[in-house]
């Protein structure tokens, strides 16, 4: 697909998501969705430097805050419409990106990362001591309730959501365009071997500066509408660790080499942390992200996309067939269910009730079963179809129990669907072609004999 076509599709998808969210008609969905989408932009931006070029930036929060404080500054001096603020923030953060790049890109590996961390501290100190934008007290940005678009009033939070989702579409288009271009080749050579890149005629410093500028500008743009969203910004939270950690964890969990890796990672982690915020507490978020990050670094260092690519190399080297797509779908379902179950079980664990405690413990065991079977299916382990069948089989009585306990229409539809999926999945796992894939290879059998 050519880039303009992709951009059109991305923007259309963004508008569709916006329309669907409006159709559901719950304001909270806009609040929660905004954060998730903001992380799509941040992690995509991080990935341009971190994933494509291999330079790990710990300073995401600084660029984000730069965008946010650009908005605060203009809100006080000369209020501008948000699309204009986005452009200004892109300029400011891009320039800072270029400057830091110029100063720090002689450093490699951990030293570069430490330098970006230091840059974040310097900028935070600067903002803390700048009284005009609120200093350490913070600043209030009162946003209007509604915005008038051509005589049609739109809720301001919906407007912010719309801006952010369009920005995400643009960011993803940029990332994808880079990947398929000369620039993408250049970035990859920098990640692989800078000396060899130079010897092949790649102007490495120039390309790295392009990456830091672009990445910084996008991060700044993600931060620009933030003061209007949150209403009150102060340095400690705007420069907070969660931005840096999340924008590293999301691409790493999704996959760093392709544009949809950060997208998958941020939708997954972003949604999960939003659910955890509601069901447990916002403090547990970072713990959850950290645990997932550690888990992925150990069992799937190239992220979800890498895990699936590896699976496809084994299962259907030529082109994905129905069997492998079905198995990927099953594993994805199992993984999502397992992770959700962990969050809900943790929420139940905080309850003092002893029955709740028992359900929570059972839930955690089930969650482990789901996640292990998803991992096993994707790494073609001989035991995984049995474990996966067990997980799906156990889910049928549990779903039935849920329906029996609460017979609302929504509940019946949700858990009914789960039962149908489980039956289909078990039937699919028993197919001969699937069994063949997971049977020990002929050569191995001979070797054992």
């Amino acid at each position, binding site marked *: 697909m050519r880039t303009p076509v992709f951009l059109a599709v991305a923007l259309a998808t963004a508008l569709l998501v916006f329309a669907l969210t409006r159709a559901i008609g719950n304001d909270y969905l806009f609040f929660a969705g905004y954060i998730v989408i903001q992380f799509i932009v941040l992690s995509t931006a991080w990935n341009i430097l971190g994933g494509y070029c291999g330079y790990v930036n710990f300073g995401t929060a600084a660029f984000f805050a730069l965008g946010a404080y650009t908005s605060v500054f203009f809100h006080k001096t000369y209020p501008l419409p948000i699309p204009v603020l986005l452009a200004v923030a892109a300029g400011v953060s891009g320039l800072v990106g270029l400057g830091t790049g110029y100063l720090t890109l002689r450093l490699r590996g951990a030293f570069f990362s430490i330098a970006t961390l230091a840059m974040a501290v310097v900028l935070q100190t600067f903002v803390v001591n700048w009284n005009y934008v609120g200093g350490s007290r913070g600043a209030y940005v009162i946003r209007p309730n509604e915005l008038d678009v051509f005589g049609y009033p739109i809720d301001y939070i919906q407007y912010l959501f719309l801006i952010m989702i369009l920005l995400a579409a643009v960011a993803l288009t940029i990332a994808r365009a880079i990947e398929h271009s000369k620039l993408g080749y250049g970035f990859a050579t920098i990640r692989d071997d800078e000396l060899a890149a130079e010897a092949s*005629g790649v102007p490495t410093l120039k390309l790295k500066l392009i990456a830091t500028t672009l990445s910084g500008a996008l991060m700044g743009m993600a931060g620009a509408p933030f003061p209007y969203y949150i209403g009150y910004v102060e340095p400690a939270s705007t420069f907070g660790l969660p931005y840096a950690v999340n924008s590293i964890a999301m691409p790493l969990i999704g996959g760093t080499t392709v544009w949809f890796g950060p997208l998958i990672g941020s939708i997954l982690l972003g949604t999960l942390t939003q659910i955890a915020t509601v069901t447990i507490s916002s403090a547990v978020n970072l713990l959850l992200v950290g645990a997932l990050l550690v888990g992925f670094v150990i069992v799937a260092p190239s992220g979800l996309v890498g895990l699936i690519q590896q699976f496809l190399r084994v299962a259907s080297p030529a082109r994905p067939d129905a069997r492998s797509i079905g198995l990927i779908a099953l594993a994805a379902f199992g993984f999502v269910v397992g992770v959700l179950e962990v969050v809900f079980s943790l929420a139940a664990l905080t309850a003092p009730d002893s029955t709740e405690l028992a359900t929570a413990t059972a839930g955690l065991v089930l969650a482990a079963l789901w996640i292990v079977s998803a991992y096993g299916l994707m790494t073609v382990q001989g035991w995984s179809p049995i474990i996966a069948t067990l997980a799906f089989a156990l889910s049928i009585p549990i779903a039935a129990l849920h329906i029996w306990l609460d017979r609302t229409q929504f509940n019946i539809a949700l858990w009914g669907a789960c039962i149908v999926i489980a039956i289909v999945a078990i039937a699919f796992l028993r197919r001969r072609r699937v069994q063949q894939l997971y049977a020990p290879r002929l050569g191995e059998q001979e070797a054992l004999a």
Partner: protein
Amino acid sequence: MTALLQVKGLGKRFGGFVALDGIDLDVAEGQRLGLIGPNGSGKSTLVNCLCGTLANETGSVTFEGRKLDGLQAHTRTRLGLARSFQLPRPFVSMTVAANLKVPLLYAVPTREHHSLTAAETDDRCAELLSLVGLVDCAHKYPRDLTQVDMRKLELARAMAAEPKLLIADEAMAGLSHSEVGDIVALLIRLNERGTTVILIEHIMRAVMNFSQRLVVLVSGKKIADGRPDDVIRDPEVERAYLGQ
């Protein structure tokens, strides 16, 4: 006729250690030059100074009448001075074909003043692959290559930049007898197409088969320069290699 590459009084130190000491070297266009010397004699340092990976402290390097001092490595590659590395340094996340596309995308257009079309890039890529005999490996990743194929890839990537002067830094270390023959034949073929080649090598059979002229470095100094047969009989060269 002026030489393609002129090196005058090139010097490089690492702290107190003198790696190169006043090297003078002229290489004529179309020549096949062998460069030998014991370990630590400064061969690789010389290559690094010529290609801009290291900066020389004294002396100057002139290429096609243009001073190269202070230019970065990628600019020198674009001007037509390419090198292969002693230990192959492929781009590990790319296929063999994609490895060759990098110089085609970055080094060639600057000299031809226009970017190659996708079809042209693919054509040149295929041509290079068949020239070095890696057609079957085009879609493999470097980690799946044998040692000799890895060496061929390293040379092919340097050749993809369409250099006027190619410096092959120990392209044959660790290869078998027949594999060494393959690589020498490849380099001679390349030279016949008009590329000047400097070969740095320890394998004397390869050097003697390949070189029209032989230069010997010892402890950062050039001690001999001339026809290969004369040079290896030079008593000073014998002393450097065999001791007294």
